[in-house]
């Protein structure tokens, strides 16, 4: 499993790339920065899920590594969209009762959706153009979102969200 500091390293790399050229940023630098920012959030979420299921000890690392490979970008996207739109299955809604989605969790899912689309455009849409401040803002957005996680990580909906990142296709109908 990628160490917990991996997402921090990716965010540092994202900032470095976005500010690498002092005067006129190269599009290739901004594109790689956007991609690094997305992958910081991607790996952070996978890391949190794997630790919550398998434990955070060093001795459990190899098991977390195996689980990490099971995550798919598309499933994580749809789970995030499902949370944002409230499209949880009826059974899940009944089980959760009156629990409301914490604002920080909604923000996290929204950020994931935005950053995945940004990453896709950055990596594949050569007609798109990016601005330095636009990308730096998105890097800051990921940093803020990750910092806010500690306040909500124990909320039942937060734990359900992590589960859904892997199991959304089966969960959405429950």
């Amino acid at each position, binding site marked *: 499993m990628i160490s917990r500091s991996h997402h921090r390293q990716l965010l540092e790399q994202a900032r470095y790339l976005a500010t690498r050229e002092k005067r006129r940023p190269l599009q290739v630098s901004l594109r790689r920065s956007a991609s690094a920012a997305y992958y910081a959030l991607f790996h952070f979420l996978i890391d949190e899920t794997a630790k919550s299921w398998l434990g955070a000890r060093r001795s459990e690392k190899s098991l977390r590594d195996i689980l990490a490979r099971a995550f798919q970008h*598309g499933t994580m*996207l*749809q789970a995030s*969209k499902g949370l*944002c*739109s409230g499209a949880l299955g009826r059974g899940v809604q009944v089980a959760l009762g009156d629990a409301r989605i914490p604002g920080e969790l909604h923000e996290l899912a*929204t950020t994931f*959706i*935005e950053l*995945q*689309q940004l990453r*896709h*455009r950055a990596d*594949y849409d050569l*007609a798109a*153009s990016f*601005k330095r*401040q*636009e990308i*730096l*803002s*998105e890097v*800051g*957005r990921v*940093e*803020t979102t990750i910092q806010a996680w500690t306040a909500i990580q124990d909320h039942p909906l937060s734990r359900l969200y992590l589960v859904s990142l892997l199991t959304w296709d089966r969960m959405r109908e429950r």
Partner: protein
Amino acid sequence: MRTVDPDKINEALDLDRLNLPARPRVRRIVWHDYRDWAGDEALRIWALLDDRTPDRDRAWKRIHPIDRAIRKAIDDIGEERFPYITFWTQAEWRQSKRSR
């Protein structure tokens, strides 16, 4: 997925109705129908900032309230497509149109 009439979206995104913070100053909001990489219908929205906006006012913590206000406005009218929101200055927008 429920989509809302474009006129209602224009109304919801009217700067006089959005109650945005004074800084950074949003000069114009532009939007169009969009399809994201997953093939889902969505909205693509640009909040165009004043050209004199300093870099520090473009940090996420400063534009987050604007982002939230736009998303709430879209949500309040019942629009279910996800809004992808980008913050550029008006000059960046014009430059982008010229280079196409």
